[in-house]
């Protein structure tokens, strides 16, 4: 079993003999060996119609409720149902559960459940030597093997001999268990994910209660789905009992509760956390939330989640296209609401012109970009961090925007509140750069108390603001006193937010360059220079309100590992392991990408070497080198998958030892 300590743990962890009955009622009363392990990584893999995401989610929920720390990584194809049994149709769900604090869904698998040859072929490389491989032998017929491009069955050619292979006729046993429930043969077969899940519950000595309750809630309410409830219940129990009866493995594994901070917890994905964060922000700001979006993977769950928040006054709008979604969000923010538009990279391309209008009209707008593999349609369901420079520069003209990036599923909540704070305080667009990995991944979230949440104070102009002052050139006069001046700025250079409907403040805004203070159309050279500089300075001023970077690690570290966004967990684990090995390495992580925290340059210049791991071609690295002239080196990966801890650990070793 894997251990985050990095020491070479035996695959089975530290045995601790114990014997007792099953928590679910042992059918045969046999005693068996129990081994306690620190943490386990399992992956369920099968055809995209096999229900692997469901099995994985159920296992995660149970583990979380048992008090383990958890981290998950669902990995599924872009096709909803690729041809059954093919390599393209394989869907997987990985869960890492532990008795201590973990930050990633795990590198190498301790156990792999495969429902067909295609799942075996695409996932076996991630199973560690000696790992447990549970195989549904019923789907290894000639045609199944052919679909996965096997000429000889891997169950027979000796290629699996480095693993502990557990052969189970999952399909036949499932059908046998559910045959009296009144389902069609096809429906009977579809219960096999619950059988497999039951089996894995037995292996790790987990209760069935959480899943039994879920099945009852989901299928027990309507008479027509009760047979499905019955069949899934039986399949789950049959899987568990099968493990118990045949003593599938000589041991059962236990993972104790994690020592985590006291509090009330729930499991949450990044996209779920974003939904709650934006609703919380609108409540904190006492402003209506308007979320306009066009469905796109992997951002759609935010639109779906917010559509269910109507009793909070949330208005969601499914627009006719990405551009419309941006326009609707901005129209709403012009009207005094919190306007948010959500999408992924290809949608950002389409929204660029509207975002630039928000830059020019200086209206609050939040652009949620749940990044996926690009360019173009790219890898819709796979993760990447390659939109940073698009967010930074992807518009015509000098067009500064604020950028923040949540660093974990849980942080998606806090980052959402921060995005709303910045947009409304500074009257500017804010990019929220999440990614497919943290958006779909989950971890336990300590539910905050309302009093702990940050305050968001939103001010709207209510009265004319002209004092009748007259000044030179671009420091234009205010004209007669008693007028409303839409571009008269405050100490941070933010302009007033006057909402249509307010008497006496009627004014016009638009995308044409305007005179400062009055907002009137103006094409004078000096004015354009002044306005361009002012827009840049305003974004830079955000740095006055964000926390400094915090460096973790020894004071005499020579190497600084710098990350941003969703790679936080993996980088943290890699740095901690390296530190335990005695390497002098420190870590810093950016949540605010534009502007960067005020101490950025001072921090970077303290270190001889800088490593920047990113799931892109080196975008933050490029920015840091360009802005601060530091010798940053990139560790870059664009495979649609997150970093493995070992990949970053390896790069750290190489840089420290000078083998880079």
């Amino acid at each position, binding site marked *: 079993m894997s251990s985050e300590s990095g020491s070479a743990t035996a695959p089975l962890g530290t045995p601790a003999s114990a014997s007792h009955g099953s928590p679910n009622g042992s059918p045969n009363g046999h005693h068996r060996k129990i081994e306690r392990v620190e943490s386990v990584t399992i992956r369920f893999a099968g055809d995209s119609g096999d229900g692997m995401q469901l099995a994985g989610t159920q296992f995660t929920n149970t583990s979380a409720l048992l008090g383990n720390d958890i981290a998950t990584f669902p990995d599924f194809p872009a096709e909803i149902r690729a041809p059954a049994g093919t390599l393209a149709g394989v869907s997987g769900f990985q869960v890492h559960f532990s008795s201590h604090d973990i930050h990633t869904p795990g590198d190498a698998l301790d156990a792999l459940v495969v429902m067909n040859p295609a799942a075996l072929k695409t996932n076996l490389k991630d199973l560690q030597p000696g790992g447990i491989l549970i195989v549904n032998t019923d789907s290894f017929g000639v045609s199944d093997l052919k679909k996965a491009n096997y000429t000889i069955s891997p169950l027979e050619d000796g290629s699996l001999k480095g693993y502990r292979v557990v052969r189970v006729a999952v399909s036949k046993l499932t059908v046998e268990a559910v045959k009296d429930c009144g389902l069609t043969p096809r429906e009977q077969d579809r219960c096999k994910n619950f059988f497999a899940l039951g089996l894995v519950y037995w292996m790790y000595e987990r209760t069935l209660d959480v899943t039994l309750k879920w099945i009852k809630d989901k299928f027990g309410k309507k008479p027509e789905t009760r047979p499905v409830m019955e069949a899934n219940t039986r399949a789950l129990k049959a899987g568990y009992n099968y493990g118990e009866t045949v003593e599938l493995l000589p041991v059962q594994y236990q993972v104790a509760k994690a020592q985590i901070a006291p509090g009330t917890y*729930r499991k949450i994905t990044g996209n779920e956390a974003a939904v709650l964060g934006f609703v919380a922000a609108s409540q904190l700001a006492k402003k209506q939330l*308007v979320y306009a979006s066009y469905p796109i993977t992997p951002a759609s769950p935010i639109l779906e989640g917010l559509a269910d928040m109507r009793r909070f006054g949330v208005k969601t709008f499914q627009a006719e296209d990405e551009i419309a979604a941006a326009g609707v969000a901005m129209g709403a923010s012009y009207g005094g609401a919190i306007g948010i538009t959500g999408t992924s990279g290809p949608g950002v391309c389409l929204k660029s012109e*509207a975002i630039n209008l928000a830059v020019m009209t200086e209206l609050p707008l939040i652009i949620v970009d749940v990044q996926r593999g690009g360019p173009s349609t790219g890898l819709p369901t796979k993760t990447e961090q390659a939109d940073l420079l698009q967010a930074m520069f992807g518009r015509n003209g000098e067009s500064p925007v604020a950028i923040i990036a949540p660093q974990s599923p849980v942080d998606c909540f806090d980052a959402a509140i921060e995005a709303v704070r910045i947009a409304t305080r500074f009257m500017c667009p804010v990019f929220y750069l999440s990614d497919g990995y943290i958006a779909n991944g989950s971890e336990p979230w300590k539910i905050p108390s309302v009093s702990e949440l940050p305050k968001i104070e939103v001010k709207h102009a209510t009265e004319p603001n002209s004092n009748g002052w007259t000044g030179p050139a671009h420091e234009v006069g205010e004209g007669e006193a008693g007028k409303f001046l839409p571009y008269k700025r405050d100490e941070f250079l933010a302009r007033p937010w006057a909402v249509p409907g307010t008497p006496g403040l009627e004014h016009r805004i638009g995308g044409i360059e305007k005179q400062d203070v009055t907002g009137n159309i103006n094409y004078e050279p000096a004015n354009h220079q002044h306005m361009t500089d002012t827009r840049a300075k305003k974004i830079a001023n955000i740095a006055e309100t964000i926390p400094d970077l915090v460096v973790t690690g020894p004071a005499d570290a020579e190497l600084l590992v710098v990350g941003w966004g969703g790679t936080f967990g993996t980088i943290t684990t890699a740095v901690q392991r390296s530190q335990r090995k005695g390497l002098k390495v420190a870590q810093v992580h950016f949540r605010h990408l534009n502007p960067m925290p005020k101490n950025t340059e001072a921090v970077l210049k303290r270190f001889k070497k800088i490593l920047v791991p990113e799931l892109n071609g080196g975008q933050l690295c490029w920015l840091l080198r360009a802005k601060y002239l530091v010798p940053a080196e990139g560790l870059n990966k664009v495979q649609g998958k997150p970093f493995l801890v070992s990949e970053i650990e390896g790069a750290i070793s190489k840089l420290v030892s000078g083998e880079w």
Partner: protein
Amino acid sequence: MATAAPLPTLTTKELTTDQEVRWCPGCGDYSILAQMKKALTTVGVPREKMVFVSGIGCSSRFPYYMNTYGFHTIHGRAPTFATGLRLANPDLQVWVVTGDGDGLSIGGNHLIHALRRNIDIKVLLFNNEIYGLTKGQYSPASRIGTPTKTSPGGSFETPVRPLSLALAAEATFVARTIDVDVQHLVAILQKAAAHKGSAFVEIYQNCKIFNDEVFKYATDKAVKSSNVLYLEHGKPMVFGKDRTKGIRLNGLKPEVVEIGKDCQLDDILTHDEFAEDPTPAYLLSRFVHSEDPSAVNPFPEPVGVFRNVTRPTYEELLADRIKVATEKKGAGKIEDLFKAEDVWTVS
């Protein structure tokens, strides 16, 4: 007897900004701006509750000249900004000013969907059948044969018929008027203002520089009575110098007939702007002026209100959903947000 509070009235001066109007001399937009101000003096909406939203093009400079709230947005997208504004604040009277390039070409998609949803916005499409601000290229509304720098030898694309498009998009209010027909223009703008839901008004607008006199057949006093059919609810569709011509339906085919010769007045089609069925309005939207002098019984181009029906607006339906959700579970409070079914406590 109790009297209702008087509706606010405005003067055209109050509706005028201090900005210099920069359209070309002789542009039809001047007349539309003047009639718009005149129309708004008596619609009963205070100035701060009016918002003009526009895209890009000559017509889209309109908001700068109206002393109301105004938002000059990006090319073709004005309906989306107007939609968002109505979502945030359903108390505002929101006007969208667009042109044939902005509204029918780059922004065609948004126009269709705003009308379909019945967002309560008033869309004014200034149709001059040309691209003016980019200096005279053909537009999707240009007639076949229109010669421009990008259509040497004349445009050969089939033009969009804006009203047919609006009707196909399920618009609840569809009308047409003409820049220089000032009383008609004011009346139509006021009817649009009074409509609840999306209103679509096509305004024939002369571009003095790049497409001058393209609507001469409909504005020249010498010929317009033969070429224009003024639609009036409940009235027979008659036109012509002596009002002796009318529209008759022959099966599903409309035809122009001579009253007293081909038929009697009773046989002439009566206009019903409130008809639920959009088919008659659609038939009218297909009437196109013919420049062919040998054409027998050519159709007049109708102006007036083609369709005016009531359907709940998007904003009303969304407010209903919010009300239902709130009644079911109570108004959301921040404390409720975090409660999930499966929580666990660590002590």
